[in-house]
Protein backbone atom coordinates (compact mmCIF):
# COMPACT_ATOMS: atom_id res chain seq x y z
CA UNK A 1 0.00 0.00 0.00
CA UNK A 2 2.91 2.33 0.86
CA UNK A 3 4.63 1.49 -2.44
CA UNK A 4 1.42 2.21 -4.36
CA UNK A 5 1.15 5.67 -2.78
CA UNK A 6 4.76 6.51 -3.74
CA UNK A 7 4.06 5.48 -7.34
CA UNK A 8 1.01 7.74 -7.36
CA UNK A 9 3.09 10.67 -6.18
CA UNK A 10 5.56 10.10 -9.00
CA UNK A 11 2.72 10.18 -11.53
CA UNK A 12 1.59 13.51 -10.09
CA UNK A 13 5.14 14.92 -10.35
CA UNK A 14 5.23 13.78 -13.98
CA UNK A 15 1.94 15.58 -14.68
CA UNK A 16 3.28 18.77 -13.08
CA UNK A 17 6.49 18.61 -15.09
CA UNK A 18 4.59 17.91 -18.30
CA UNK A 19 2.26 20.87 -17.61
CA UNK A 20 5.26 23.12 -16.98
CA UNK A 21 6.83 22.06 -20.27
CA UNK A 22 3.54 22.82 -22.10
CA UNK A 23 3.21 26.28 -20.48
CA UNK A 24 6.80 27.24 -21.27
CA UNK A 25 6.52 25.92 -24.82
CA UNK A 26 3.34 27.96 -25.41
CA UNK A 27 4.91 31.12 -23.97
CA UNK A 28 8.08 30.66 -26.01
CA UNK A 29 6.20 29.97 -29.25
CA UNK A 30 4.03 33.03 -28.63
CA UNK A 31 7.12 35.27 -28.74
CA UNK A 32 7.83 34.22 -32.31
CA UNK A 33 4.25 33.99 -33.52
CA UNK A 34 3.55 35.98 -36.69
CA UNK A 35 -0.17 36.63 -36.50
CA UNK A 36 -2.01 36.89 -39.81
CA UNK A 37 -3.76 40.12 -40.82
CA UNK A 38 -7.51 40.09 -41.05
CA UNK A 39 -9.09 41.54 -44.19
CA UNK A 40 -12.04 42.58 -42.03
CA UNK A 41 -9.93 44.89 -39.85
CA UNK A 42 -7.19 45.71 -42.34
CA UNK A 43 -8.48 49.22 -43.07
CA UNK A 44 -8.85 50.20 -39.41
CA UNK A 45 -5.41 48.79 -38.62
CA UNK A 46 -3.90 50.88 -41.43
CA UNK A 47 -5.81 53.98 -40.28
CA UNK A 48 -4.44 53.51 -36.77
CA UNK A 49 -0.94 53.10 -38.18
CA UNK A 50 -1.30 56.20 -40.37
CA UNK A 51 -2.53 58.40 -37.52
CA UNK A 52 0.24 57.22 -35.22
CA UNK A 53 2.98 57.81 -37.79
CA UNK A 54 1.77 61.32 -38.67
CA UNK A 55 1.32 62.19 -35.00
CA UNK A 56 4.83 60.95 -34.12
CA UNK A 57 6.38 62.97 -36.96
CA UNK A 58 4.35 66.02 -35.89
CA UNK A 59 5.44 65.64 -32.26
CA UNK A 60 9.08 65.53 -33.32
CA UNK A 61 8.54 68.75 -35.31
CA UNK A 62 9.49 67.07 -38.59
CA UNK A 63 6.05 67.15 -40.20
CA UNK A 64 5.48 70.95 -40.00
CA UNK A 65 9.12 71.60 -40.97
CA UNK A 66 8.89 69.52 -44.16
CA UNK A 67 5.35 70.59 -45.08
CA UNK A 68 5.89 74.36 -44.67
CA UNK A 69 9.32 74.34 -46.32
CA UNK A 70 7.78 72.17 -49.11
CA UNK A 71 10.58 69.66 -48.69
CA UNK A 72 8.63 66.77 -50.21
CA UNK A 73 11.59 64.41 -50.72
CA UNK A 74 12.50 64.47 -47.03
CA UNK A 75 8.83 64.08 -46.07
CA UNK A 76 8.62 60.99 -48.28
CA UNK A 77 11.84 59.63 -46.73
CA UNK A 78 10.50 60.23 -43.20
CA UNK A 79 7.29 58.32 -44.02
CA UNK A 80 9.22 55.47 -45.64
CA UNK A 81 11.35 55.11 -42.53
CA UNK A 82 8.36 55.31 -40.17
CA UNK A 83 6.00 52.92 -41.96
CA UNK A 84 6.52 49.15 -42.35
CA UNK A 85 8.16 48.19 -45.64
CA UNK A 86 5.07 46.32 -46.91
CA UNK A 87 2.80 49.34 -46.46
CA UNK A 88 2.51 51.58 -49.54
CA UNK A 89 1.51 55.23 -49.13
CA UNK A 90 0.40 58.26 -51.09
CA UNK A 91 0.35 61.60 -49.27
CA UNK A 92 -1.34 64.71 -50.60
CA UNK A 93 -1.05 68.13 -48.97
CA UNK A 94 -3.92 70.59 -49.38
CA UNK A 95 -4.69 74.08 -48.15
CA UNK A 96 -8.05 74.91 -46.55
CA UNK A 97 -9.70 75.36 -49.97
CA UNK A 98 -8.65 71.81 -50.88
CA UNK A 99 -6.12 73.07 -53.42
CA UNK A 100 -3.24 70.65 -53.76
CA UNK A 101 0.04 72.12 -52.49
CA UNK A 102 2.59 69.40 -53.28
CA UNK A 103 3.67 69.65 -56.91
CA UNK A 104 5.54 66.33 -56.84
CA UNK A 105 3.93 63.09 -55.62
CA UNK A 106 4.80 61.93 -52.11
CA UNK A 107 4.47 58.30 -52.91
CA UNK A 108 5.95 54.90 -52.19
CA UNK A 109 5.01 51.50 -53.61
CA UNK A 110 3.07 50.11 -56.51
CA UNK A 111 0.40 52.43 -57.95
CA UNK A 112 -1.72 49.46 -59.03
CA UNK A 113 -1.98 48.33 -55.39
CA UNK A 114 -4.09 51.42 -54.64
CA UNK A 115 -6.37 50.73 -57.63
CA UNK A 116 -6.75 46.99 -57.14
CA UNK A 117 -6.87 46.58 -53.37
CA UNK A 118 -10.20 46.62 -51.57
CA UNK A 119 -8.51 47.67 -48.33
CA UNK A 120 -7.25 51.19 -48.90
CA UNK A 121 -7.17 53.34 -45.74
CA UNK A 122 -7.39 57.11 -45.82
CA UNK A 123 -6.22 59.31 -42.93
CA UNK A 124 -6.80 63.05 -42.68
CA UNK A 125 -4.46 65.11 -40.50
CA UNK A 126 -4.44 68.86 -39.80
CA UNK A 127 -1.52 71.21 -39.21
CA UNK A 128 -2.10 74.71 -37.84
CA UNK A 129 0.96 76.53 -39.19
CA UNK A 130 4.66 77.02 -38.65
CA UNK A 131 5.58 80.71 -38.31
CA UNK A 132 2.07 82.07 -38.80
CA UNK A 133 -1.50 80.76 -38.91
CA UNK A 134 -1.62 78.81 -42.17
CA UNK A 135 -3.45 75.46 -41.84
CA UNK A 136 -2.65 72.51 -44.07
CA UNK A 137 -4.66 69.32 -44.59
CA UNK A 138 -2.69 66.12 -45.09
CA UNK A 139 -4.46 63.15 -46.67
CA UNK A 140 -2.48 59.93 -46.31
CA UNK A 141 -3.67 56.88 -48.26
CA UNK A 142 -2.29 53.53 -47.19
CA UNK A 143 -2.46 50.04 -48.62
CA UNK A 144 -0.61 46.84 -47.84
CA UNK A 145 1.55 45.59 -50.70
Amino acid at each position, binding site marked *: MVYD*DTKGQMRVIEVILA*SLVIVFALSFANLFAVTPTSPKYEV*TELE*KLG*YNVLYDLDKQGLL*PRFVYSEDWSNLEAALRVSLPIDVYFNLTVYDLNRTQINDTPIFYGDASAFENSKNVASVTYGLV*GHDSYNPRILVLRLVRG
Partner: protein
Amino acid sequence: MRRLIVQKSGQFVIIAVLMIALMIISIAPLLHRTVTYYKHEPWEEYLALIGSIELNSERLVTLSLANYTQTLNQDILTENLEKWQIDIMKIYSGRGISLTYETAYLNYSWEKQQSLSVANVTFTLDIESIGLKGYKFTVVKLLNLTIIAIDESSIIVTVKDENKAPVTDLEENFKVIDANTNSTLEDIEVTSDYDEKEQLIYRLRLLCNCTVPTPVVVEVWSPENIRVRAKYSP
Protein backbone atom coordinates in the same frame (compact mmCIF):
# COMPACT_ATOMS: atom_id res chain seq x y z
CA MET B 1 1.67 4.79 10.80
CA ARG B 2 -0.43 3.90 7.75
CA ARG B 3 -2.86 6.71 8.56
CA LEU B 4 0.04 9.17 8.68
CA ILE B 5 1.28 8.07 5.24
CA VAL B 6 -2.18 8.43 3.78
CA GLN B 7 -2.49 11.96 5.23
CA LYS B 8 0.89 12.99 3.76
CA SER B 9 -0.16 11.70 0.38
CA GLY B 10 -3.35 13.77 0.62
CA GLN B 11 -1.38 16.93 1.32
CA PHE B 12 0.82 16.22 -1.70
CA VAL B 13 -2.19 15.79 -3.95
CA ILE B 14 -3.61 19.13 -2.74
CA ILE B 15 -0.31 20.90 -3.48
CA ALA B 16 -0.19 19.26 -6.90
CA VAL B 17 -3.75 20.32 -7.70
CA LEU B 18 -2.95 23.90 -6.66
CA MET B 19 0.12 23.96 -8.90
CA ILE B 20 -1.82 22.63 -11.86
CA ALA B 21 -4.52 25.24 -11.23
CA LEU B 22 -1.79 27.90 -11.21
CA MET B 23 -0.51 26.69 -14.56
CA ILE B 24 -3.99 26.64 -16.07
CA ILE B 25 -4.51 30.22 -14.88
CA SER B 26 -1.20 31.27 -16.42
CA ILE B 27 -2.43 29.98 -19.79
CA ALA B 28 -5.54 32.17 -19.48
CA PRO B 29 -3.82 35.44 -20.60
CA LEU B 30 -2.45 33.66 -23.66
CA LEU B 31 -5.90 32.38 -24.56
CA HIS B 32 -7.44 35.83 -23.91
CA ARG B 33 -4.94 37.47 -26.26
CA THR B 34 -5.68 34.89 -28.93
CA VAL B 35 -9.44 35.36 -28.63
CA THR B 36 -9.31 39.20 -28.64
CA TYR B 37 -6.58 39.59 -31.26
CA TYR B 38 -8.99 40.78 -33.94
CA LYS B 39 -11.21 42.75 -31.61
CA HIS B 40 -11.31 46.31 -32.88
CA GLU B 41 -10.61 49.00 -30.31
CA PRO B 42 -11.57 52.32 -31.95
CA TRP B 43 -10.15 54.47 -29.14
CA GLU B 44 -6.61 53.61 -30.22
CA GLU B 45 -6.81 55.62 -33.46
CA TYR B 46 -8.66 58.45 -31.72
CA LEU B 47 -5.84 58.85 -29.18
CA ALA B 48 -3.57 60.05 -31.99
CA LEU B 49 -6.36 62.30 -33.32
CA ILE B 50 -6.89 63.93 -29.89
CA GLY B 51 -3.12 64.18 -29.47
CA SER B 52 -2.75 65.92 -32.84
CA ILE B 53 -5.47 68.46 -31.98
CA GLU B 54 -3.78 69.18 -28.63
CA LEU B 55 -0.36 69.48 -30.27
CA ASN B 56 -1.54 71.85 -33.00
CA SER B 57 -3.57 73.94 -30.54
CA GLU B 58 -0.39 74.31 -28.47
CA ARG B 59 1.48 75.34 -31.61
CA LEU B 60 -1.24 77.90 -32.33
CA VAL B 61 -0.77 79.47 -28.90
CA THR B 62 3.01 79.52 -29.40
CA LEU B 63 2.90 81.21 -32.79
CA SER B 64 0.28 83.69 -31.52
CA LEU B 65 2.54 84.60 -28.59
CA ALA B 66 5.51 84.97 -30.96
CA ASN B 67 3.47 87.26 -33.19
CA TYR B 68 2.22 89.24 -30.18
CA THR B 69 5.73 89.85 -28.81
CA GLN B 70 6.81 91.16 -32.22
CA THR B 71 3.80 93.28 -33.13
CA LEU B 72 2.11 93.81 -29.72
CA ASN B 73 -1.21 93.07 -31.44
CA GLN B 74 -3.36 92.12 -28.42
CA ASP B 75 -6.09 90.58 -30.61
CA ILE B 76 -3.87 88.09 -32.43
CA LEU B 77 -4.55 85.19 -30.05
CA THR B 78 -8.35 85.46 -30.08
CA GLU B 79 -8.34 86.01 -33.87
CA ASN B 80 -6.26 82.86 -34.40
CA LEU B 81 -8.33 80.86 -31.90
CA GLU B 82 -11.58 81.80 -33.63
CA LYS B 83 -10.18 80.87 -37.04
CA TRP B 84 -8.79 77.58 -35.69
CA GLN B 85 -12.07 76.46 -34.13
CA ILE B 86 -13.84 76.96 -37.48
CA ASP B 87 -11.06 75.48 -39.62
CA ILE B 88 -10.66 72.39 -37.46
CA MET B 89 -14.24 71.43 -38.34
CA LYS B 90 -13.34 71.75 -42.05
CA ILE B 91 -10.16 69.71 -41.64
CA TYR B 92 -11.84 66.84 -39.79
CA SER B 93 -15.25 67.14 -41.43
CA GLY B 94 -17.61 64.28 -40.70
CA ARG B 95 -16.14 63.50 -37.30
CA GLY B 96 -18.26 65.96 -35.33
CA ILE B 97 -15.30 67.82 -33.84
CA SER B 98 -15.91 70.97 -31.86
CA LEU B 99 -13.07 72.89 -30.23
CA THR B 100 -13.86 75.86 -28.02
CA TYR B 101 -11.76 78.00 -25.71
CA GLU B 102 -12.74 79.37 -22.32
CA THR B 103 -9.94 81.66 -21.25
CA ALA B 104 -7.34 83.24 -23.48
CA TYR B 105 -4.66 85.21 -21.66
CA LEU B 106 -1.85 87.02 -23.43
CA ASN B 107 0.55 89.36 -21.69
CA TYR B 108 4.10 90.57 -21.23
CA SER B 109 6.10 92.12 -18.45
CA TRP B 110 9.22 93.65 -19.96
CA GLU B 111 12.07 95.98 -19.08
CA LYS B 112 12.42 94.59 -15.58
CA GLN B 113 15.32 92.60 -14.23
CA GLN B 114 13.05 89.54 -14.40
CA SER B 115 10.88 89.84 -17.52
CA LEU B 116 8.51 87.48 -19.25
CA SER B 117 6.09 86.91 -22.14
CA VAL B 118 3.17 84.58 -21.48
CA ALA B 119 0.08 83.05 -23.11
CA ASN B 120 -2.45 80.78 -21.47
CA VAL B 121 -5.52 79.16 -23.08
CA THR B 122 -7.96 76.52 -21.81
CA PHE B 123 -9.60 74.48 -24.57
CA THR B 124 -12.63 72.19 -24.51
CA LEU B 125 -12.79 69.44 -27.11
CA ASP B 126 -15.87 67.46 -28.18
CA ILE B 127 -15.74 64.61 -30.71
CA GLU B 128 -19.26 63.47 -31.44
CA SER B 129 -18.29 60.38 -33.46
CA ILE B 130 -16.68 58.74 -30.40
CA GLY B 131 -18.89 60.26 -27.73
CA LEU B 132 -16.13 62.44 -26.29
CA LYS B 133 -17.59 65.47 -24.56
CA GLY B 134 -16.04 68.21 -22.46
CA TYR B 135 -12.40 67.12 -22.69
CA LYS B 136 -10.43 70.07 -21.29
CA PHE B 137 -6.77 70.85 -21.77
CA THR B 138 -4.72 73.91 -20.94
CA VAL B 139 -1.83 75.31 -22.91
CA VAL B 140 0.67 77.60 -21.19
CA LYS B 141 3.58 79.15 -23.08
CA LEU B 142 6.05 81.33 -21.23
CA LEU B 143 9.51 82.75 -21.82
CA ASN B 144 11.32 84.23 -18.84
CA LEU B 145 14.50 86.30 -19.11
CA THR B 146 16.36 87.26 -15.93
CA ILE B 147 19.47 89.41 -15.70
CA ILE B 148 21.36 87.75 -12.86
CA ALA B 149 24.43 89.95 -12.63
CA ILE B 150 26.49 92.54 -14.44
CA ASP B 151 30.19 93.24 -14.23
CA GLU B 152 32.43 95.63 -16.18
CA SER B 153 32.35 93.84 -19.52
CA SER B 154 29.72 91.13 -19.30
CA ILE B 155 26.10 90.47 -18.48
CA ILE B 156 24.94 87.16 -17.03
CA VAL B 157 21.38 86.10 -17.86
CA THR B 158 19.18 83.04 -17.68
CA VAL B 159 16.29 82.10 -19.99
CA LYS B 160 13.61 79.68 -18.83
CA ASP B 161 10.37 78.25 -20.22
CA GLU B 162 6.96 77.55 -18.63
CA ASN B 163 8.33 74.48 -16.83
CA LYS B 164 11.19 76.53 -15.34
CA ALA B 165 13.54 74.55 -17.56
CA PRO B 166 16.43 76.45 -19.18
CA VAL B 167 16.10 77.19 -22.90
CA THR B 168 19.18 76.02 -24.79
CA ASP B 169 20.93 77.05 -28.03
CA LEU B 170 20.20 80.76 -27.81
CA GLU B 171 23.79 81.94 -28.42
CA GLU B 172 22.74 83.68 -31.67
CA ASN B 173 19.49 85.09 -30.25
CA PHE B 174 20.59 87.95 -27.98
CA LYS B 175 20.69 91.70 -28.42
CA VAL B 176 22.18 94.22 -25.96
CA ILE B 177 20.85 97.79 -26.03
CA ASP B 178 22.21 100.87 -24.29
CA ALA B 179 19.05 102.22 -22.61
CA ASN B 180 20.45 105.79 -22.48
CA THR B 181 20.99 106.15 -26.22
CA ASN B 182 18.67 103.35 -27.34
CA SER B 183 21.45 102.01 -29.57
CA THR B 184 22.28 98.35 -30.08
CA LEU B 185 25.76 97.21 -29.07
CA GLU B 186 26.94 95.21 -32.06
CA ASP B 187 30.08 93.42 -30.87
CA ILE B 188 28.99 90.87 -28.30
CA GLU B 189 30.07 87.32 -27.67
CA VAL B 190 27.57 84.93 -26.11
CA THR B 191 28.65 81.78 -24.31
CA SER B 192 26.65 79.36 -22.21
CA ASP B 193 27.78 77.77 -18.94
CA TYR B 194 26.45 75.32 -16.39
CA ASP B 195 25.34 76.93 -13.16
CA GLU B 196 24.50 74.99 -10.02
CA LYS B 197 21.50 77.14 -9.12
CA GLU B 198 20.14 78.17 -12.53
CA GLN B 199 21.29 75.07 -14.45
CA LEU B 200 22.18 77.11 -17.56
CA ILE B 201 23.39 80.69 -17.79
CA TYR B 202 24.37 82.84 -20.76
CA ARG B 203 27.31 85.21 -20.49
CA LEU B 204 27.06 88.20 -22.85
CA ARG B 205 30.53 89.74 -23.17
CA LEU B 206 31.13 93.09 -24.85
CA LEU B 207 34.03 92.97 -27.30
CA CYS B 208 34.36 96.74 -27.73
CA ASN B 209 36.81 97.31 -24.84
CA CYS B 210 34.10 99.31 -23.12
CA THR B 211 32.14 98.86 -19.90
CA VAL B 212 28.56 97.67 -19.81
CA PRO B 213 26.32 100.76 -19.93
CA THR B 214 23.68 101.18 -17.24
CA PRO B 215 20.81 101.02 -17.51
CA VAL B 216 21.11 98.25 -20.08
CA VAL B 217 18.42 96.30 -21.95
CA VAL B 218 18.87 92.67 -23.00
CA GLU B 219 16.58 91.19 -25.60
CA VAL B 220 16.21 87.51 -26.43
CA TRP B 221 14.02 85.56 -28.83
CA SER B 222 13.34 81.83 -28.56
CA PRO B 223 13.57 79.37 -31.50
CA GLU B 224 9.78 79.91 -31.91
CA ASN B 225 10.42 83.70 -32.12
CA ILE B 226 8.90 84.58 -28.73
CA ARG B 227 10.60 87.80 -27.64
CA VAL B 228 11.41 89.16 -24.16
CA ARG B 229 13.24 92.34 -23.07
CA ALA B 230 14.79 92.66 -19.64
CA LYS B 231 16.33 95.82 -18.17
CA TYR B 232 19.02 96.24 -15.54
CA SER B 233 19.15 99.52 -13.64
CA PRO B 234 21.69 99.98 -10.85
